[in-house]
């Protein structure tokens, strides 16, 4: 028996009404299986952001179907989408987006607030996630005192604390130098080795090349690379 794919886009088109009407994504088909490591590469304006929006349940396709974990998402209302987003998808962003006035631990705990992690487990899981990214000695630090690499690792801990099905990384190394960027990518690969499904959206060829499977998005159209 074949397990349902984590992500399946069927003929997805996303258009923004004009004038002129713009088709940001054109009839895209994409299948990401459990445990896949996919990179989506493309220049600015190619539709990567729209792709991220759709995959992250932050937007809906104009045409087509998005099956997440084998279930159609088109019938979910806004509240259900928020719950699914919190429970199934983890995000890592280029700009980290850590709350500056909260400790590292609090920042990770933030992801447990909305995703329905049982209250009693929250702190243990947050500590475990920070342990996983090697930051258990920084629990009470404020993000401002951390290095860029450390901050992104906090963000990764936050993304995985709710045990998502899918980790969406949007330019995860964009604000990091090459060495720390590689460290973060190593961390992603470790998580992937543990079975996490990973989609990295980037314009950086080097980052993209590390993925097992690569797709390129150009002008709203998707093409498999090699």
């Amino acid at each position: 028996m074949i397990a349902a794919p984590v992500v399946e886009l069927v003929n997805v088109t996303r258009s923004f009404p004009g004038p002129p009407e713009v088709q940001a994504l054109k009839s895209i088909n994409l299948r990401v299986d459990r445990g896949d490591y996919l990179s989506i590469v493309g220049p600015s304006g190619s539709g990567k952001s729209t792709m991220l929006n759709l995959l992250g349940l932050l937007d809906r396709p104009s045409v087509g179907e998005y099956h997440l974990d084998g279930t159609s998402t088109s019938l979910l209302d806004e509240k259900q989408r928020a719950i699914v987003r919190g429970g199934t998808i983890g995000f890592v962003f280029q700009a980290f987006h850590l709350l500056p006035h909260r400790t590292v631990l609090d920042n990770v705990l933030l992801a447990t607030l909305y995703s329905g992690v049982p209250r009693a487990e929250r702190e243990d899981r947050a500590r475990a996630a920070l342990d996983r990214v090697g930051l258990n000695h920084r629990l009470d630090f404020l993000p401002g005192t951390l290095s860029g690499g450390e901050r992104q690792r906090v963000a990764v801990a936050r993304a995985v604390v709710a045990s998502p099905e899918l980790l969406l990384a949007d330019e995860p190394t964009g604000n990091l130098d090459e060495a720390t960027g590689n460290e973060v990518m190593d961390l992603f690969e470790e998580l992937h080795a543990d079975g996490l499904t990973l989609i990295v959206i980037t314009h950086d060829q080097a980052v993209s090349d590390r993925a097992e499977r690569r797709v390129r998005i150009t002008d709203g159209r998707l093409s498999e690379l090699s």
Partner: protein
Amino acid sequence: MRFFGKRMPQPTVQATPASDADSIVPVIARANRFSVQDLLVEASYGVGARPSRLVMTTLGTVLGIASLVVTIGFAQTAAGQISNQFDAVSATQIMIEPASTRNSSGTEQATGRLPWDAPSRVDRLAGVEQAGLVADVDVAGQRITSVPVNDPSAAQTLSPNLIATSPGLLAAVRGEVVTGRYFDAGHDERADRVAVLGARAAETLGINRVDSQPSIFIGEVPYTVIGIIDGVERRTNLLDAVVVPLNTARTDFGLSAPAELHVQIDVGAGKLVARQAPIALDPNAPENFKVQAPAAASSLQDNIQADINIVFLTLGILALLAGGLGIANVTLLSVMERVGEIGLRRALGATKRDIARQFIVESAVIGLLGGLIGSALGVFAVVVVSLLQGWTPILDPIVAIGAALVGTLVGLAAGAYPAVRASNIEPITALRGGT
């Protein structure tokens, strides 16, 4: 990237069986959802993140609430002062005297004359408890002494005044007999030579007990002292005077007419008695009497309270409006600064409602803080000013608590628009925008 400045249009939705969609939505136990507790914790971090800004933000509300509390506090305190002045005595006391006109040569001249039987005339009116006449008696330079000795070496002392009253006067002015008794209708009728001493006059004359029937002398004529009085609430010069019955004064000193009629009335009967008494005294010429009746104290208080309230309440409300605008402004600013955080929370699973609630609660907490501080300052100001003025500070505790709640309401109202703005922020736009 250029698509993200716009609002997302409502995408078309293709129908699939609903049961299919439900399976992916995890059922989250109520206890594990984003609870009120979580909301309050998150909001408190938002409020506390920038203490200096918080101070500036609350300032408007603090001023508004403080001025409201001060206004109401002073109104209540002033009302208390007024009712102190219009105490039970003044509210139940009427004084009637003959009206006077100024004649062509500029001297005051009485136009009417109180009848000798005035007390019995007004006694019959509803609401009258006690009535008594009083008149100052001219002793034509005769000295009032306790010893009829002309001692050239004795120091010249000011002799007490002589006042004549009807028997009921003492009760009408709420005096009390310290020792002995007050003269009665019998003494008055017979024009007995008896006298009652005011407490201070008794001291001056060296008389402190009456069981030995001491005498005083007005000129050469002895009068038997039968009592000493004290504690009168009106005509307090009685305490410095020698008091004799009216008829005695008429007989011995040719007193021509009583000067004042004091009436003790029931509470609230002031207006009625003030209208009826002159008619009872002289049905043909009631206009010849001047009546001093208690003002309708409640309406007076209302007037004063209304004056104070309108001016200061307006100021307070204006300050409060400014405070509310301040909160709205700063909350809006904070929304703009925290688009990244908002996007992040949305990405982490917060609904639009969660975001809106967080900002609403943040501004409500700011409002509550402003309300509490303002209320405390207002109470403090009322107490301090009352202390300096020697007033009794009066402030309904409900006002203090209510003012803090009003602050919360202002915060709630002020937070509404920023909260809507916050909830409509597009997550990915916010997340990719940096910060």
